[in-house]
């Protein structure tokens, strides 16, 4: 194995520019060598700005040139592009959601198995310091048995999105599959599996939903609600209430609020605000996510958010939508302008 893994960026939209590229610069084991995007001007501009030697509009030109790819495309392209890369022995970090439906996820998992490659899904929030701390505290039973979960994320001031986001066929859904899937993944990771879900949203056959609400029951009996919106400013947090206290995880900040009714620290203080350092890089989760994949490729540790984990989150969304997904035909031609 080479000292530095050669990295290809498949789709160079805002999420790659803002987050993934910075993470790539923070992981010395990775060397960006190629850019693919259907928009040739964008690919060229990105490659020039980032000093990447090769750019193209054709996925097949990457083969043999890279060891690892970051796939950040419209949701419809996640499965076909990832399958092609994984099957050819290229490890993949695929943006969330893993795919539009469960059959597509299964195809990706199978492709990774056949290609003996690592597949990592971009649920980067698992790597955030407040989330890892929350999980550690939950593991210690700091709030007792979890009884209630309330999650909210939504904002009106969102960044520029590609049209693919708003096309039901390409996106596979709206706010729930785009934003809500992060919350679903975190709730699964911290609490366990969803057992019942009940969805309400304002989507139609021709338009994805901008607002969605999920009422659910977890396998451990806890009940909860999840609200996501692209039109309203909501409290960006997950609040877990247990038999002995509560824990609030900030979604847009590294904030964690905790209370344990019996704890010594809470005799006089209503709660503690765990402060996580805001020194740059402010959000190290993308760096840690990429490092995790690199370590997995080298055999040092397993991928934290593998295909099974990514699929489990998608499955909750699909159950919520009550959709029966159409079978997928893997066509690299759907590789269109970088999303996110």
């Amino acid at each position, binding site marked *: 194995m080479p000292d530095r893994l050669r990295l290809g960026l498949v789709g160079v939209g805002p999420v790659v520019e803002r987050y993934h590229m910075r993470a790539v610069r923070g992981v010395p084991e990775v060397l960006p060598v190629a850019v693919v995007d259907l928009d040739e001007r964008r690919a060229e501009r990105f490659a020039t700005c980032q000093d990447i030697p090769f750019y193209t509009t054709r996925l097949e030109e990457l083969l043999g040139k890279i060891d690892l790819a970051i796939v950040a495309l419209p949701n419809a392209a996640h499965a076909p592009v990832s399958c092609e890369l994984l099957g050819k022995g290229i490890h993949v970090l695929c943006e969330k959601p893993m795919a539009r439906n469960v059959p597509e996820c299964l195809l990706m998992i199978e492709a990774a198995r056949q290609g003996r490659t690592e597949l990592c899904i971009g649920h980067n929030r698992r790597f955030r310091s407040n989330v890892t701390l929350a999980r550690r505290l939950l593991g210690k039973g700091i709030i007792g048995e979890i009884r209630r979960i309330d999650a909210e994320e939504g904002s009106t001031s969102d960044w520029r999105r590609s049209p693919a986001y708003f096309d039901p066929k390409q996106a596979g859904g709206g706010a729930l599959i785009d934003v809500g899937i992060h919350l679903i993944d975190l709730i699964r990771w911290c609490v366990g599996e969803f057992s019942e879900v009940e969805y309400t949203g304002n989507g139609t056959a021709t338009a994805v939903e901008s607002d969605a609400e999920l009422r659910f029951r977890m396998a451990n009996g806890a009940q909860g609600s999840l609200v996501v919106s692209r039109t309203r400013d909501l409290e960006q947090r997950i609040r877990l209430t247990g038999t002995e206290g509560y824990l609030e995880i900030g979604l847009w900040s590294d904030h964690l609020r905790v209370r344990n009714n019996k704890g010594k*620290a809470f005799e006089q*203080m209503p709660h503690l605000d765990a402060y996580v350092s805001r020194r740059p890089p402010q959000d190290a989760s993308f760096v840690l996510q990429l490092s995790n994949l690199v370590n997995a490729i080298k055999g040092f540790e397993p991928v934290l958010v593998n295909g099974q984990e990514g699929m489990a989150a998608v499955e909750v969304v699909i159950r919520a939508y009550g959709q029966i997904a159409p079978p997928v035909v893997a066509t690299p031609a759907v590789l269109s302008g970088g999303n996110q």
Partner: protein
Amino acid sequence: MKSSSNLRVHPDFPDKQNHAPALAILRYEDHGNLGEMLSRLQTELPQLLPASLPPKVVIKPNLCDVVSWEAGVTTDPAWLPMLARKLRAIRPDVQIVVVESDAISAYKSFRSCDETYDRLGYREIARQHNIELVNLSRTESIEISLEGIPLPVQVSELFLEEFYFISIANLKVHAYERMTGILKNSLGLLSNCDLSPLHPYLSLLINCLHRLCPPNLCIIDGRIGLEGHGPILGEPVRMNSIIFSDDALSADVAACKLMMIPPKEVPHLRSVAKILGRGFPSISLPAGIQARAFDFNGPSHREILLKFSNRRFHRSTELLTNLWINRLARFKREPIKFGREVIPKLVRRLYAR
């Protein structure tokens, strides 16, 4: 053992929680038997010792340096077996934990808490009496923000659990704070090694720590006090008295009384009393216990105030500069988004005026 019955209760302290602090100042001359002193305390002021205990008891001695307790600097390890016996009589399966943390001194020398445990005899005593020694700097900790303090502090996750807390301090003068007792002893609960950046905010910090982990039983071991250049380099002085209380402020005010230091000259006492909404309790020393005016070789109160106000000023200008640099960087990176966020805020502020 010679000890006189010097137990006093002050039921009339104005307290927000309608709890009348109990305080006892005992004369003590026999260094060999702290246990009998505790038994006497239990008989004469039973409310100071608990009737029942949670599964865990945490004891915080003052181990600020590797110096024997006879020098008046650190806590005598002989307290541990005595307290353990008493606590196990209340709850036989109680888990007793002694806590302290690593520290970096004002001279930037590192003091390992584990080494202090070893060299002051705590390790051996803990082994003999099934007591757990914990170095808080090596436990899992969380960084928390405290109101009014611009730097985060680290506290052990232990404080999220339920426990009965005993704080044992010494009768000492302190260069910055004039005196150190139970309230100042709580600084050792922080996992941070280097507390010097926090010194300008000491009073606030002590206040917050008192709220974070209020002691259930306070013991100020004044058998040997420390005067001169405290809290480490001073001269030991025999005082033959021990203060017990269930209230940190009362215990510290009693210590001030013994050292003849006006409590209002101690910044953190003033601050805690103000925030608790109480004045300083009026304490008269029992017969047989003599106060002594402790020498104080530290800088004057005025010098300290000036030094720390300078450091606070530098810190606040540093924060302000960082804030504006960050804003400028954001403006350069995303001018339109920045403008969209900032202009409505500015308009709202102007409108509010």
